[in-house]
């Protein structure tokens, strides 16, 4: 059996609650959904849901202005529940380091949750003047499986049509 790797849980997230039958040797601290964790399950158990608790830290908009590196870190760690990640992604559009913000946001356009993809579009809406961002949003507007996500992308592109484009 592969042992779970050490993971530091952000202090703003108090604990991780799990549902389903899991090996009791795994504690809350290690109860993060990853391949090592799944390897420790009994053969008869095939489904585990990890429910990430609500974000208790400062508002994401404030983080974007005062601690942008922290916000960017949160976007990439997988520690935020999708209901928080959608608003974190939107707020990340405010980060003054545009290159870093766009780099962190673009992968989230492929997140499995439409809620996250929608928030990501709002985060990217400030940067549609960049050709690569616009191209990605045009693809999403035509091809995303969620009607709401497609609408969000179309709205963002239409709203930005009058802006000057930059490379």
């Amino acid at each position, binding site marked *: 059996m592969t042992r779970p790797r050490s993971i530091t849980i952000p202090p703003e997230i108090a604990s991780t609650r799990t549902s389903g039958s899991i090996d009791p040797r795994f504690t809350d601290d290690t109860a993060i959904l990853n391949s090592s964790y799944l390897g420790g399950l009994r053969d008869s158990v095939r489904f585990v849901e990890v429910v990430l608790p*609500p974000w208790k830290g400062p508002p994401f908009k404030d983080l974007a202005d005062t601690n942008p590196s922290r916000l960017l870190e949160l976007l990439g760690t997988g520690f935020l529940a999708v*209901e928080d990640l959608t608003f974190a992604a939107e707020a990340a559009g405010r980060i003054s380091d545009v290159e870093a913000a766009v780099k962190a946001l673009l992968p989230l356009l492929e997140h499995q949750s439409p*809620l996250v993809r929608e928030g990501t579009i709002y985060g990217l809406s400030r940067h549609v003047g960049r050709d690569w961002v616009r191209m990605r949003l045009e693809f999403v507007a035509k091809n995303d499986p*969620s009607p709401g996500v497609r609408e*969000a992308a179309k*709205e963002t592109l*239409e709203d930005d049509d009058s802006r000057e484009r930059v490379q």
Partner: protein
Amino acid sequence: MLALRVGRRRTTWESNEIDKIIRTEFWGDNGEVDLEISVYRVEQTDVLRTVAEHCAGLGVTTRGFPNLNLEAGRLLDETPGETGFSFTVAAHRDLRFASEGELREFLSKAIIPEATQRTHKVERSQMVAYARDRAAAGDPEWVSFFERNPRWPKE
């Protein structure tokens, strides 16, 4: 009359998952469920005005979100709105719940099964056109708003 709740995300109601709906649309800034739901008591003909004033006055994201009519016979407490626009200040109400369980039951039984019929969507372009028309017509509230926020709806 509607008890109009201004939405926060388009995709919230695509799944009908009660947990996701509560965490996205009925969640407070304090990281807890909001048991005092802010709504507007308005006629259907005033939906566009209501949503435009809400988004502009509160400085929230102005997007074409689905707005839900939460009218289901519950008492609404008159509480002044904070938009700065007299119409929505007066039309504001609180829809109160004693517990998350009560809110959950309300949404599950009264709202989610009729979510499609209860949805009143307003596009961002409609809100912007409405606001600019009001300002052009000399509406003092909108004229004043644009003097303070010339770039709206851009932040």
